[in-house]
């Protein structure tokens, strides 16, 4: 086992285990903090996939932005002293049905992923992807880039407008 294999299994286990904690935990604060470790494991997987820029973006936007927003949302919408911190689920029958359904979907995906012969291409070791991403964003994908900036502006204004006190 070389170091990359060990690192892959470490980050993969981190992602899957804490992803399961996010979904199955009864306490919503536990879920929110487990999401942190899941995002961190995914950032580690990005590093193993030679996506250095995406790994930093994952940590900065998901952990630094979206997760903080979600924790703020949890704290603002739950009465900490009451029983409301717990996040309810459905009845036993619906839970079992959903569990079977998602397990079937997961098994189908695993079979499809392992039985397909994917197109693979060997590549030499990559130095850094930042230059390539910058070039692509400002040439081939310029229109999508500008549209994304407009979308973010509209989302900020709209979110502030919706959430303000009347």
């Amino acid at each position: 086992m070389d170091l990359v294999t060990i690192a892959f299994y470490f980050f993969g286990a981190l992602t899957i285990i804490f992803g399961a904690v996010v979904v199955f935990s009864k306490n919503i604060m536990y879920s929110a903090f487990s999401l942190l470790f899941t995002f961190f494991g995914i950032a580690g997987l990005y590093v193993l996939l030679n996506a250095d820029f995406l790994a930093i973006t994952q940590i900065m936007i998901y952990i630094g932005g979206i997760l903080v927003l979600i924790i703020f949302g949890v704290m603002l919408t739950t009465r900490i002293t009451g029983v409301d911190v717990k996040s309810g689920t459905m009845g036993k029958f619906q839970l079992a049905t959903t569990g079977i359904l998602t397990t079937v979907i997961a098994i189908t995906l695993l079979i499809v992923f392992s039985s397909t012969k994917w197109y693979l291409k060997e590549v030499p070791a990559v130095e850094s992807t930042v230059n390539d991403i910058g070039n692509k964003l400002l040439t081939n994908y310029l229109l999508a880039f500008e549209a994304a900036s407009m979308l973010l502006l509209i989302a900020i204004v709209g979110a502030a407008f919706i959430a303000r006190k009347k």
Partner: protein
Amino acid sequence: MEIGLTHYLFISAILFSLGLYGIITRKHAIMVLMGLELVLNAANINFIAFARFGGMNIEGHIAAIFVIILAAAEAAVALAIVLNIYQNFRHVNIDEVDNLKG
């Protein structure tokens, strides 16, 4: 055994199923959001794994960046809506917010 494309695809498939389970079973609106983030991250792992093993194709990274941008915008607007629901109903159970039901 060498770590290949299918290893990453397996992780993304399991993460996707977990997120789907969370979206369907939870009543709390913010829990649904968290399940959604898991699904989006699973899609991102697929994009970047295919980009890496298909010849370091940078287009996959661009798609992942746009997914992250959309997730950020979606989280901001969704949390604003959740705060509004909380101000009106004093709870955020999405299956009890059915005032428009006939």
